[in-house]
């Protein structure tokens, strides 16, 4: 059964005329890792908010259609009822920090405490999250004394600790170094093995190609395509949507290297290597 169902969703922010989400419909299965791509202002963040209930409950505005997460219709339930099911990591980690806690450790505890979880479990969850994001060393620091990259790790840890069944991440690696980015992608991929469903908005196309099960391409509030990385990145018209294919795919297209069975272009180094190997 689909864990996320989006049906004909339309949305406009208050005092604006433009539909930021324009008749979107799609389903996501449990445990899938979905990449969300599109140029800036395509509606990626708004879609993230709509899945977490911030649209329409926090932002208000005009809303039509239906979003169901874990069987709950978002519009009919308050954010407090939705948040145990859906975790959201903001684009700007600064916005994620509560501002009411003085250490990273307490910051991560905040959400868990608010959910009324047992102390013992809270301690375990915090330690687990600190370790996963490799931030145990900074657990006693003030969240606002951290570098951008460290704060981004804390933001992710504070949401992962809640163990939501659906985890939404809005450009979670924008301030991380390359190996930090790779680590976060691996952590997220491992969560899908526990049955957690992931939606991640990201510009790092090359990484998305290697890790996601399917990619959702949106443009001006509309869903353009929702398919496997290989199919999606083999499209000829990506540039029309402000997207550039992964390096591997671009090189393959220039050289005419395609998968013989399905005619798609490679999207990862391994696939390219395999196709090139066959050719040589």
């Amino acid at each position, binding site marked *: 059964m689909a864990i996320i169902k989006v049906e004909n969703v339309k949305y406009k922010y208050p005092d604006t005329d433009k539909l930021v989400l324009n008749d979107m419909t799609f389903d996501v299965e449990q445990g899938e890792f979905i990449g969300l791509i599109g140029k*800036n202002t395509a509606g990626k963040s708004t879609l993230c908010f709509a899945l977490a209930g911030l649209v329409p409950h926090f932002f208000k505005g005009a809303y039509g259609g239906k979003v169901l997460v874990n069987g709950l219709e978002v519009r009919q339930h308050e954010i407090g009822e939705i948040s145990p099911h859906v975790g959201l990591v903001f684009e700007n980690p600064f916005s994620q920090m509560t501002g009411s806690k003085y250490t990273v450790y307490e910051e991560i505890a905040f959400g868990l405490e608010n959910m009324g979880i047992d102390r013992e479990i809270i301690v375990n969850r915090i330690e687990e999250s600190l370790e996963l994001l490799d931030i145990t060393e900074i657990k006693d620091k003030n969240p606002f004394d951290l570098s*951008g990259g460290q704060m981004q790790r804390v933001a992710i840890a504070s949401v992962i600790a809640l163990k939501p069944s659906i985890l939404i991440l809005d450009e979670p690696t924008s301030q*991380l170094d*390359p*190996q930090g980015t790779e680590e976060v992608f691996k952590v997220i991929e491992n969560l899908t093995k526990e049955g957690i469903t992931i939606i991640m908005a990201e*510009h790092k196309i090359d990484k998305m190609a290697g890790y996601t099960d399917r990619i959702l391409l949106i443009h001006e509030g509309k869903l353009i395509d929702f398919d496997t990385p290989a199919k999606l990145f083999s499209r000829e018209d990506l540039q029309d949507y402000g997207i550039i294919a992964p390096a591997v795919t671009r090189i393959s297209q220039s050289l005419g290297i395609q998968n013989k069975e399905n005619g798609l272009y490679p999207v990862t180094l391994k696939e390219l*290597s395999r196709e090139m190997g066959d050719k040589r």
Partner: protein
Amino acid sequence: MNSIEVTNLSFSYTPEIDVLKGIHLKLDGETTAIVGQNGAGKSTFVKLLKGLLRPTEGEILLNGKNTKDYTVASLAKEIGLVFQNPNDQIFKNTVIGEVMFGPLNIGQDEQKAKEKSIEALEKVHLEKYLETNPYDLSLSERKLIAIASILSMDPNIVIFDEPTMGQDYAGKETLKEIIFELRNQGKLVLCILHDMDFAAEVFERTIVFNQGKVLIEGPSRDIFAQKEILEQAYLEQPYVAQIADELGLKGSYATDEDLLRALKEE
């Protein structure tokens, strides 16, 4: 030509932990990328260049001026720094007010400041938002406004702290144009980056920071060909170089064209 000379620079926020240790660098006309893992000291280094922090030890000369002998305000005409987080930089309630703030404060008159500011906003393609509140725009747009606020001051040395953060393909192309234009005007451009592809493609020279020290520096082509050293600094090669490596090609590759040329020759 503009120059930055750094000798034996060390810095610590607290006595126990050295953030930067014994840095020697000489930067002149070339566009330079600064790369390194989170916490390597990159942002601290550029804050020292800008005069926002003072060296614990060592000297920094900006076009011959020792930063120790000048106030931050008097260096502002010389050197501009675009912050990593635009929210740390932006405080006015209109875009034009924000971008004009710098030029007015370094002594430009109202009319010139406005001209310069509109020009700068045109470069980042946000000139239609003059009267908009910056906080009604997206984070990536605010990032571009922070850039325009520095360009409008027309400093000789321009430093960007992670400008590609949150930018899409079009945003990165805009940045590329701005950097090339600054270089052609003879400005010294420095840029902290986590985007190795962008660093390899756009910058002539690259400095790799690791745990408060310069691990290696040189022409970008040479630096990005060195897989082991990059990995030691928690970085990775640009994707085209990774592809070349996977296919067993020797040499250095910064752009699609480099790689395609080599593959076609084979």
